[in-house]
C-alpha cells in the first residue's frame, strides 16, 4: 500500500537512501560486498545532513553525518593505536552520550567488533557489578573494554587477571594518532555483538554479520515504507536490540533522522518523548508494552499535546496486549493518536531485529480463542462456551524470513496449532560468540529455535508464551534459573530453596520478577529481602518487584522433586490477594 503523499518518493524494493548509496558507488545492482562501514562514507553534500538530535539534560546536540564519521574515525585511530586488532571485541560501557555512537562506529571502522553493555546505575554497588562481569570478560579474551577513567580502578580490583585492554574515553578524546584506518571488512564478517539476554556473567553475545544487518534493515525499512519524510524518536537504551537496530542503525542506514533521549531521563520525565515528537514532527516510535502504560499513567493529555505527525507506535520486546492499545488510544485521542497507528513487531537479536511486523495504517488483528483448548491441547478454537483469551497478531514475517511452528520432535505443525516458533532466512545471527555448544543447540540446519510458543493464522504470527523460564521485565530478558543462582549466593538464604517467577501485572503492562526464598538463618525477613534485592540489582541491574521470605518447607515441589515455578507463583498470588482484601 502506497503511503498517502509519499507515493512518489517511495521506492518499494529499497529505500531512497539505499538507492542513492548504490548510485554513489556507481553500480547498478546490490553489491554483496556492502557493509555498515560503506554507509559511513558520505559525500560533502550528505555530510551536512542531520543524523541525530541528541537530547540530554535539557540541551540538544545536533550530530551531522560528516561529524559522525569524523568522530568515529578518531575512535578508530585510537583503538588501533592502543593495539586493538581487527576481529577483536571492544566492549563499550558508557553512560548515554554521543561517545556511545562514535565509539561503536569507530570500533567497526577499525575492523574490531563492538558491543554495548549497560552502564551501572547509581544504585548498583560497583564491586559486585564488575565482579559479575568476570566470566564474560574471560570469555571475550583479548580485546578491549572502553569505559571512564573513574571506573578503571574498580575494574582492576574486582575483575582482575583478564586479558582485555582497559581503555578510557578520556584517553580517546585527547588522543592524536596519525593512524590511517579504513578497515574494509567483508560482508560476511561479524559486525558487532548484541549482549541483550540473561544476567551479566551468563549473557550470550549474539554475533551479527554486516550482510545480515543490511538485509534486515533493508527488508524492515521496506515493510515500514520508510521515506526521507520520516523521523524516528527514541528513549531506548542502545545496548538493547530495539534501541540499537530500530533507533540507531536503521536511521543510519536509511538516512532518516533520529531523536535520541536519555533512557534515565525519560523514565523520570516520560512527557519529554511527546515533546520531542511535537518539535521534530516524529513519525515512528518503538516502545515495549510497559512504556505505553507508563506514558498513560504519567503524561497528562493537554490541548498543547500534538502527536498528529506520527505514522506508527510500534509495540515490541515484550508480550503486546490489545488492552494496552485501547487505553493508549483512548488516553491520547485528543492529541491525535488513533487505533490504526498502534502496531506490533515480534523481534529478537538472533534475527538482527524484526521477525514479523503488522501492516502500518491498518489495525492489527486480535483473535479471541478458547482458553482451555489453547492451554491444554495447543489448539486454536474460536468457538467456545468457556473462558476466552484475546491474542494480538504480530503480523507476517518480513521479506527474507520464514517461520515454522514445530512440535517437540521438530515436526512442522499446521496453521492453528500452537508450537515452538522456529525461524530461518537471510538475516539470522552467525552464532553466540565463543559458545559453540549453545549455538548448535539453538541454530540447527539453518533454523533458529526461539523457545517462544505461538501459532500461525492466515499467515500471521500470534505469540502465546514461552517454552523456557524467560521473564521479560520492561522489555529486558532475564532467565529465572540465573536469578535463582544469584539468590542462592546470598548469605541467609536456605541453599537451593528459592524460586524466581514472572508475575504479570496488568496495571504495569509488564511482567515483574518475584523471588520467594526460604530463610535458612535467624535474619529478620526484611533484612534478608533487602539483601536479596540488592544482590540481584548489583549484578543484573534488575529491581526485583517483591521478595517474599518464607519459612522452611514453604516452597512447593513437583513430583520429580524440582521446585515448581507455576505452583509457587499461584501460592504467592493467593497470599497477595489475601493481603489486599
Amino acid at each position, binding site marked *: 500500500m502506497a503511503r498517502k503523499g509519499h507515493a512518489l518518493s517511495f521506492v518499494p524494493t529499497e529505500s531512497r537512501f539505499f538507492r542513492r548509496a548504490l548510485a554513489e558507488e556507481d553500480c547498478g545492482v546490490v553489491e554483496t560486498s556492502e557493509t555498515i562501514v560503506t554507509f559511513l562514507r558520505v559525500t560533502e553534500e550528505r555530510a551536512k545532513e542531520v543524523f541525530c538530535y541528541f537530547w540530554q*539534560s*535539557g540541551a540538544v546536540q545536533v550530530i551531522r553525518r560528516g561529524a559522525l564519521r569524523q568522530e568515529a574515525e578518531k575512535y578508530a585511530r585510537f583503538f588501533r593505536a592502543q593495539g586493538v586488532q581487527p576481529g577483536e571485541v571492544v566492549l563499550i560501557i558508557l553512560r548515554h552520550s554521543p561517545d556511545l555512537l562514535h565509539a561503536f562506529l569507530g570500533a567497526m571502522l577499525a575492523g574490531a567488533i563492538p558491543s554495548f553493555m549497560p552502564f551501572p546505575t*547509581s*544504585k548498583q554497588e560497583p564491586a559486585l557489578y564488575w565482579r559479575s562481569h568476570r566470566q564474560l570478560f574471560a570469555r571475550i579474551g583479548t580485546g578491549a573494554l572502553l569505559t571512564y577513567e573513574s571506573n578503571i580502578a574498580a575494574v582492576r580490583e574486582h575483575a582482575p587477571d583478564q586479558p582485555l585492554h582497559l581503555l578510557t574515553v578520556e584517553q580517546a578524546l585527547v588522543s592524536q594518532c596519525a593512524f590511517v584506518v579504513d578497515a574494509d571488512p567483508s560482508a560476511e564478517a561479524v559486525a558487532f555483538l548484541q549482549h541483550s539476554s540473561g544476567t551479566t556473567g551468563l549473557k550470550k553475545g549474539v554475533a551479527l554479520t554486516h550482510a545480515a544487518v543490511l538485509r534486515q534493515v533493508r527488508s524492515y525499512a521496506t515493510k515500514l515504507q520508510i521515506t526521507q519524510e520520516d523521523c524516528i524518536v527514541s528513549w531506548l537504551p542502545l545496548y538493547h536490540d530495539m534501541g540499537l537496530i530500530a533507533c540507531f542503525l536503521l536511521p543510519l542506514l536509511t538516512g532518516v533522522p533520529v531523536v535520541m533521549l536519555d533512557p*534515565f*531521563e525519560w*523514565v*523520570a*520525565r*516520560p512527557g519529554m518523548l511527546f515533546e520531542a515528537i511535537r518539535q521534530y514532527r516524529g513519525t515512528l516510535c518503538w516502545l515495549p508494552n*510497559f512504556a505505553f502504560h*507508563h506514558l498513560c*499513567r*504519567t503524561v497528562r493529555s493537554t490541548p498543547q499535546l500534538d502527536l498528529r505527525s506520527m505514522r506508527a507506535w510500534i509495540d515490541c520486546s515484550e508480550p503486546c496486549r490489545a488492552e494496552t492499545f485501547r487505553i493508549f488510544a483512548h488516553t491520547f485521542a485528543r492529541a491525535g493518536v488513533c487505533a490504526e497507528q498502534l502496531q506490533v513487531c515480534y523481534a529478537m537479536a538472533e534475527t538482527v531485529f524484526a521477525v514479523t511486523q503488522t501492516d502500518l495504517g491498518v489495525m492489527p488483528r486480535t483473535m479471541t480463542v478458547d482458553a482451555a483448548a489453547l492451554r491444554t491441547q495447543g489448539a486454536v478454537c474460536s468457538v467456545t462456551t468457556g473462558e476466552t483469551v484475546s491474542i494480538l497478531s504480530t503480523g507476517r514475517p518480513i521479506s527474507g524470513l520464514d517461520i515454522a511452528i514445530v512440535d517437540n520432535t521438530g515436526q512442522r505443525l499446521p496453521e492453528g496449532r500452537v508450537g515452538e516458533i522456529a525461524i530461518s532466512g537471510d538475516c539470522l545471527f552467525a552464532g553466540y560468540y565463543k559458545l559453540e555448544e549453545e549455538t548448535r543447540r539453538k541454530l540447527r540446519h539453518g533454523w533458529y529455535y526461539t523457545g517462544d510458543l505461538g501459532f500461525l493464522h492466515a499467515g500471521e504470527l500470534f505469540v502465546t508464551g514461552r517454552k523456557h523460564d524467560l521473564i521479560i521485565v*520492561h522489555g529486558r530478558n532475564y532467565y529465572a534459573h540465573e536469578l535463582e543462582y544469584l539468590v542462592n549466593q546470598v548469605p541467609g538464604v536456605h541453599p537451593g530453596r528459592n524460586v524466581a517467577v514472572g508475575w504479570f501485572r496488568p496495571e*504495569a503492562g509488564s511482567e*515483574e520478577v518475584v523471588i520467594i526464598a526460604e530463610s535458612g538463618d535467624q535474619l529478620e525477613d*526484611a533484612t534478608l529481602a*533487602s539483601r536479596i*534485592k*540488592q544482590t540481584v*540489582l548489583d549484578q543484573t541491574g534488575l*529491581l526485583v*518487584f*517483591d521478595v517474599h521470605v518464607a519459612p522452611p518447607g514453604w516452597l512447593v515441589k513437583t513430583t520429580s522433586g524440582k521446585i515448581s515455578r507455576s505452583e509457587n507463583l499461584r501460592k504467592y498470588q493467593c497470599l497477595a490477594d489475601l*493481603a489486599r482484601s
Partner: protein
Amino acid sequence: MTSEEILPQLTRIIIEVAHCGPVPINRATRALDVRGWDSLTHTTILMQIEDHFGLRLPLERVLNLRNVGELADLIAELRHSA
C-alpha cells in the same frame, strides 16, 4: 514546612502509589526496601509529590536521591525557596 513535617505526607503518597500495604517508612528507607517501588513507580510518586506540594522537582536532582530522607529534604528546600 520542615523535613520532619513532610515525611508523614510523603509516606502516605509512597504507600498509596506503590500499593505496598502499611510498611514502616523513615528517613533511611530506600526504594529497594519497599515492595513495588521501582523506577516507574518512582515517576508516579514524584508526580504525586509535585501535585501535593505544588512544586516542580528538577530532573537532575531527583535522579540522584538515595533515600526518603533526601527526598523530604529536597521538598523542604524547594518549598522554602519558592
